[in-house]
């Protein structure tokens, strides 16, 4: 194989948890550099930890590599070092070719200036000359679909329009390697599709990619290789599918096996009811530690009420660390017109999932019992649980119950 276009060798970087101390270390690092301190310094000072700890990988021309890991795993720090924003504390990064980064769109935008003026500023920051921009201005405006707004001040743009303009400028770059950090999760679906088309054009021309995304679907479709990180350390690398799988199994293993209610499960002040426990039951009614994808299970909430009440709704919101702030599932008995009466004393409110459509992985749930909208009887947040692998799942976003058949026609 040819020479790698990007080579990351045993890279480490220290970070500090405490802001005041961090700033002070910054000053002392500058002083150290100015007097030419030793080349490698990895002693951890107070409150410091390794944000990137011994990471190595290569990217060859035309290849796409996914950086996989939870928030705070060190992916962005690593990308910033690859981008040359700051130096590693140990190891070496070699870039052989023109590198561009889609980490922030619209760098240097000024809200008071018009879209057209901002194109020139942004393009200059990205290293384009005035002549290049003159030549490509029309293409940029057309790509951003902003021709009728291009002379309007940027502050009157919607956030989506700004992103479009930013991407349109960046899309004019033709780098050998492109770093992308989550920026493509913006804009409307049609524009996103256009961005992906542009990226696939670049890919066909042989541009290599390093991609950070929490969407496993994107990673699987775009990348061939994966590098999985946890707390700064690389624990898996290789073909993207295997890397993602070992990342997921690690996620499941690291989480607690059963559902855990946070410590403050006692009555919340001013709330009439009290949530005592949250657990799953399988189709035979047995309490199970983890439900599995594709099988039936009930999400059960054990609670206590001081008096009988009618029209009580159970609201369940489920999120996954892999999907950012978006809800994976949000259901309420109220909206389903399935409010129930609850008795005095202890009761179990069950939500039957027939079947469980959540992919295997780690989740957090927020549950509440409500009488009317905004009239909350009891609430419990940050309940974490795992879903294990049941039926064959593949790389789908959710489980779809299914039957297959062939009929003569």
């Amino acid at each position, binding site marked *: 194989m040819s020479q790698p276009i990007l080579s990351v060798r045993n890279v480490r*970087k220290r970070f*500090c948890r405490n802001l005041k101390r*961090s*700033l002070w*270390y*910054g*000053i002392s*690092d*500058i002083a*150290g*550099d*100015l*007097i*030419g*301190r*030793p*080349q*490698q310094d990895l002693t951890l000072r107070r409150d410091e930890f390794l944000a990137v700890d011994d990471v190595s990988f290569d990217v060859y021309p035309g290849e796409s590599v996914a950086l996989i890991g939870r928030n705070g795993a060190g992916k*962005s720090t690593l990308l*910033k*070092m*690859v*981008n*040359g*924003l*700051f*130096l*590693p*504390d*140990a*190891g*070496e*990064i*070699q*870039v*052989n*070719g*023109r*590198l*561009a*980064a889609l*980490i*922030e769109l619209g*760098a*240097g935008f*000024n809200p*008071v*200036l018009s879209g057209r*003026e901002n194109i*020139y*500023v942004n393009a*200059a*920051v*990205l*290293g*384009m*000359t*005035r002549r290049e921009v003159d030549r490509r201005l029309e293409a940029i405006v057309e790509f951003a679909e902003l021709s009728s707004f291009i002379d309007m001040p940027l502050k009157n743009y919607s956030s989506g329009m700004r992103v479009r303009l930013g991407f349109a400028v960046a899309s004019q*770059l*033709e780098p050998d390697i492109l770093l992308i950090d989550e920026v493509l999760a913006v804009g409307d679906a049609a524009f996103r599709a256009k961005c992906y088309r542009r990226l696939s054009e670049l890919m066909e021309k042989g541009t290599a990619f390093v991609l950070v995304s929490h969407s496993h679907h994107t990673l699987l479709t775009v990348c061939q290789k994966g590098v999985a990180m946890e707390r700064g350390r690389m624990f898996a690398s290789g073909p993207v599918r295997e890397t993602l799988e070992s990342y997921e199994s690690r996620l499941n293993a690291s989480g607690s096996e059963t559902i855990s209610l946070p410590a403050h499960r006692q009555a919340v002040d001013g709330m009439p009811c009290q949530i005592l426990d949250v657990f799953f039951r399988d189709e035979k009614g047995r309490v199970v530690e983890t439900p599995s994808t594709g099988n039936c299970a009930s999400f059960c909430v054990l609670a206590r009420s001081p008096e009988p009440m009618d029209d009580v709704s159970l609201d369940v919101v489920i999120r996954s660390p892999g999907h950012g702030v978006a809800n994976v599932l949000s259901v309420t008995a109220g909206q389903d017109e399935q409010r129930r009466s609850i008795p005095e004393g202890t009761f179990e409110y069950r939500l039957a999932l027939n079947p469980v459509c959540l992919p295997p992985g780690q989740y957090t749930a927020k549950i509440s019992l409500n009488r009317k909208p905004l009239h909350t009887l009891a609430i419990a947040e940050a309940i974490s649980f795992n879903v294990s692998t049941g039926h064959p799942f593949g790389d789908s976003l959710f489980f779809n119950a299914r039957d297959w058949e062939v009929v003569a026609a």
Partner: protein
Amino acid sequence: MSENRPNSVVYRPGSPLRDPAGLFRKLGADLLACRELAWRLLVRNISARYRQSLLGYFWAIFPPLATTAIWLFLTRERVVTISTGAVPYPVFLITGTILWQTFVDAIQIPVRVISESKSMLAKINFPREALPLTAFAECWFNVGIRALILAAAYMYLGFTPAATVGFAVAGLFAIILLGVMIGVFLSPFALLYQDVSNGLVLICQIWMYCSPVIFLPRTDGWIGLLNRWNPISPLLCQTRDWMTTGSHEFLPAASSVFLLTCAGMSAAFLVYRIGLPRAIERLSS
């Protein structure tokens, strides 16, 4: 994130000072390469500043005019008496305050430009030398506006500047260079600590009264001592003399300050280049 970036780079830990020749070569190359970006940022800063302001260019001239007005009032009312020799006091005063404001700008603008670019610095790799260059050019833009005001003031006061007034450009260059040097030196620290910008405002105010801005330079007493060891003092006096009396009295001292400034400028850029990535790693995240 530049397309013109050299085709192979290696990022390694350790101080760039271990290869000083290479460091200065890269510094020079980046300074040359970033001219266009600096120009673009200058146009952006200036057009944005004045588009969002009702009084526009007024803000570039207000501080020296205010200082002039205050001191004219104080001397007219004989609260203080200041002798300025052959030059009428109003001329002396407005020339001095405008030169002083140019110096203060030259310190503060680099710090401001770099602090305002925080998010860009933290996320994008661009030739960072463009920022001090932008600041330097912005100082000259302000000088241009103030020169018009000064010309109008001279005309109003019926004062004819000395024949040496053309040399004042060299003097202004030295003043701006000294200020920008201080600003560039401070800017990595200003990125880390807000105190730097806050402190600068205070220090500049005190510094003005230690400099021969509103009075003639003295040689005796504490003020004399302060004037002698104050690097801006000979630059300011010589530039003012070129504009008013035509004397070259401060030229030797001003020349040595200028030479020292040139040397200091390379040191300031060194601190900037080494310090900025260190500051950026503390900003980001």
